[in-house]
């Protein structure tokens, strides 16, 4: 203990010092950190602009040292399109929940992806509307109980959960689309790689990029954080398989 120790893991520069308002164990926080680390490592913080959604992460701008715009519910991809088109030299990303992106914002994300807008979307799929108190989302699992599906999601009336990554990757316009998880340390490490790649592709002006992250909502799922990560593995992952669905560097379209 004579020479001073080196920090090998610390709060990324792109993150602010604020304590988040997220519930204990909510993995929104992990995903925030992965985004911040990616910006730092690629040297993008200075020219990044984030677009916050409406959802639990609406206050994301309090946790970053990055310029931020706050979008109407679901419309972040349109704001990002507008910004990036007039400032193609900047790095633009949206951070959106599943209610935000897959429900009210369906039109905006499909069309931004289809036009091949050169921004990055971090899509946090926690199978529920967190902020408004746990209503059913388009991504809610079959039979999952929520405040608006008290007997469980009835697929005969509400249909099956929408797999956004699969759907968007059917578009012919080139894109990078991957689904990752943050429910074990190893998954977090892989999630980081995907997010960083998404930003790198944007940096290189390549394509639209989206990383869907399976996330937890212990509060509205009504189970504790550890159980929540397990539920992602056992209940969500089989339906929402992890992987890369579209990659301009893989040569598929």
């Amino acid at each position, binding site marked *: 203990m004579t020479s001073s120790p080196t920090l090998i893991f610390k709060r990324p520069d792109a993150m*602010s010092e604020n304590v988040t308002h997220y519930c204990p164990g909510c993995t929104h926080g992990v995903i925030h950190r992965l985004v911040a680390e990616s910006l730092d490592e690629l040297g993008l*913080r*200075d*020219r*990044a*602009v984030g*677009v*916050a959604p409406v959802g639990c992460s*609406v*206050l994301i*701008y309090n946790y*970053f*040292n*990055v*310029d*931020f*715009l*706050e*979008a*109407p519910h679901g*419309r972040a991809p*349109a*704001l*990002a*399109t*507008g*910004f*990036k*088109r*007039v*400032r193609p030299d*900047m790095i633009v990303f949206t951070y959106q929940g599943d209610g935000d992106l897959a429900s009210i914002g369906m*039109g*905006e994300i499909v*069309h931004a992806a289809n036009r091949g807008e050169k921004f990055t979307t971090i899509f946090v799929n926690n199978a529920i509307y967190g902020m408004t108190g746990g209503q059913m989302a388009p991504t809610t699992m079959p039979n999952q109980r929520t405040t608006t599906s008290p007997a469980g999601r009835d697929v005969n009336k509400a249909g099956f959960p929408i797999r956004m990554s699969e759907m968007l990757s059917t578009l012919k316009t080139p894109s990078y689309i991957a689904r990752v998880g943050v429910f074990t340390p190893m998954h977090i490490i892989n999630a980081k790689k995907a997010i960083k790649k998404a930003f790198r592709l944007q940096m290189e002006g390549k394509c639209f990029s989206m990383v869907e992250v399976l996330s937890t909502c212990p509060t509205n799922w009504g189970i504790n954080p550890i159980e929540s990560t397990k539920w992602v593995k056992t209940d969500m992952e089989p339906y929402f398989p992890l992987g890369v669905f579209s990659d301009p560097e893989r040569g598929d379209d």
Partner: protein
Amino acid sequence: MAKRLMKGNEAIGEAAIAAGAPNYFAYPITPQSEVAEYLCWRLPEVDGVFVQAESEVAVGNMLFGASASGKRVFTTSSSPGISLMQETISYMAGAHLPVVFVNIMRGGPGLGGILPAQSDYFQATKGGGHGDYRIIVLAPSSVQEAVDMMLWAFDLAEKYLTPVMLIGDGMIGQMMESVEFPDKYREENNPDEIEWALTGAKGRKARICKSLFLNPEQLEENSFLLAEKYKKIKKAERRCELYNVKDDNKIIITSYGTMARICQTAIDELEGEGVSVGLFRPITLFPYPEEELYAEGSKKNIKCVLSVEMSTGQMVEDVERIMKGKKKIDFFGRTGGVVPSPDEVKDKVRKILRIKK
């Protein structure tokens, strides 16, 4: 610059370029699709941005994003399309962002028709979206005025950090008139010189462009800030035009946009018949030139203030409010795409004055 004969829709597009706002996001809708059809080839010539969006909801939100960059941005649409932008207009007002909307109004409600109307007065001037906000509303009555007001609209939007809406009817968009543009087009803004623009948090604290204030005191503060802004606008930016206003006027007509021109023709013809009528044409609909109207309308010689609109009667409510019961208020309107003729206006005036033809 030399005079050019131009369609209103195209002139509006060119004017935005002249105003240093070659950044256009839009969705097609009659009767203003020519703006996009003009700008889709014209903007690339000036390195501008042209995006045909997937919907008017997306248009509004693209503008929202683009405006936050500090550059000047705008769209054009028509009535139903403007309705779809109301949530976003409220957001942009709340976030203090400049932007210019052009509404080439058509007959409504609903899908309505595609012919000229002025039935979006309420929506534009009272705020069709939610919450305590207003927007500046300008009403040109000629193609040249549309051009001049586009230039002014961007300046106002930036001066007050607020959405500005130019409302014209289908005629303004479709007609060709001679028009002049400034000799020197304005340069585009340099975002780095704009203190509220999102330019990347390099060497400064991060900037946040938002309308959420979870703490009610802060939200109230923002609303009071907005109210303060509107007060300033009301004080400084009222504009109107008087036509044939004289001491022997029996009636003052209030009318705006192309409708006011039709009234002018009626007034000229009435003058020929020895009937003296003045025209009060608000150029800014918000802020409404209230003092000015009250001053003219309450003069001794005036018997009646007559609001003439291409609607079933919307501005007339403001006229009533402003005139404070001082004079009889009357209304004449055709709507749904029917454009009243000068003759109809004359008939109405004669009826009020009980003049047999």
